[in-house]
């Protein structure tokens, strides 16, 4: 796996992400500055990490979505490249219209930093290969704007095409209203592109890859990517 993490001004979880990728892949990812216009040769995974790109001023992810490197990311995705956007990365993918919908302020209007549970809604993708359908895992959320919104038609399409990757749920796997901490439409925590190669999600699987630091519940996502990219080189 040749991963490249894009660093926008204000990105702040790139180190966390690099640790998780290295743990799964056995090699460190490249870090790429937002002003670059090309991805390193051989890149097979682009990662947009968490943080507050451009201070999250105006709207989270809006300014980053227009930065020079995003043209290359868009082309990479159009060629079938794998792209992972976590938290601010998810917001950027939505703002760049690489994924549908938008992320609004949390319904509580507060920043939420806490554990949450996610249910795997679509196994067998490059991001979820190591999980069973319906598996429940723990993750940590840390965001002020994670309230997923799309119009009803878009939501129906996402559900119909099986593009909802993860839903917020309780420890038993029930997608209850209480488990939907940020108020997302239909408890949606992460969605996929139609070719299943672009994933955006709000919580941080990269923060649970070490037994010492709260557990390894997030590791399967990165191992799934390693499997998928070994099977289908870019």
């Amino acid at each position, binding site marked *: 796996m040749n991963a490249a993490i894009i660093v926008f001004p204000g990105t702040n979880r790139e180190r966390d992400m690099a640790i998780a990728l290295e743990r799964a892949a056995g090699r460190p990812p490249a870090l790429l500055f937002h002003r670059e216009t090309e991805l390193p040769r051989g890149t097979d995974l682009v990662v947009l990490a968490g943080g507050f790109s451009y201070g999250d001023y105006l709207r989270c992810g809006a300014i980053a979505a*227009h930065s020079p490197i995003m043209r290359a990311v868009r082309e990479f995705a159009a060629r079938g490249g794998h792209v992972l956007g976590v938290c601010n990365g998810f917001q950027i993918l*939505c703002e760049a219209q690489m994924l549908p919908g938008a992320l*609004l302020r949390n319904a509580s209007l507060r920043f939420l930093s806490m554990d949450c549970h996610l249910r795997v809604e679509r196994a067998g993708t490059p991001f979820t290969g190591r999980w069973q359908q319906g598996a429940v895992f723990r993750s940590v959320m840390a965001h002020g704007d994670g309230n997923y919104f799309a119009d009803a038609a878009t939501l129906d399409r996402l559900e119909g095409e099986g593009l909802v990757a993860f839903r917020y749920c309780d420890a038993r796997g029930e997608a209850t209203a209480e488990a939907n901490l940020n108020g997302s439409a239909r408890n949606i925590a992460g969605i996929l592109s139609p070719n299943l190669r672009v994933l955006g999600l709000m919580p941080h699987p990269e923060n649970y890859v070490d037994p010492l630091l709260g557990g390894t519940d997030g590791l399967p996502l990165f191992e799934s990517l390693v499997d998928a990219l070994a099977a289908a080189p870019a």
Partner: protein
Amino acid sequence: MRARVTVMPKAGVLDPQGKAIGHALANLGFAGVGEVRAGKVIELELAESDPAKAKAQAEEMARRLLANLVIESYRVEIA
């Protein structure tokens, strides 16, 4: 010219901030407050001196960056 771009949540899009403000006003004892919507306003100094052109420019800014048309609508005024 000065352009003022007002960006509001679209009808049908949840506006938790507007709702919270409505609640807070009620708690402060303000009666007769109906719907409250909260949006953004961006005021720009433009070098362009032709009002029509300035407006067109600000509208393009709104479409490309200032508003997210999935969830927001915008309005441009020139002063």
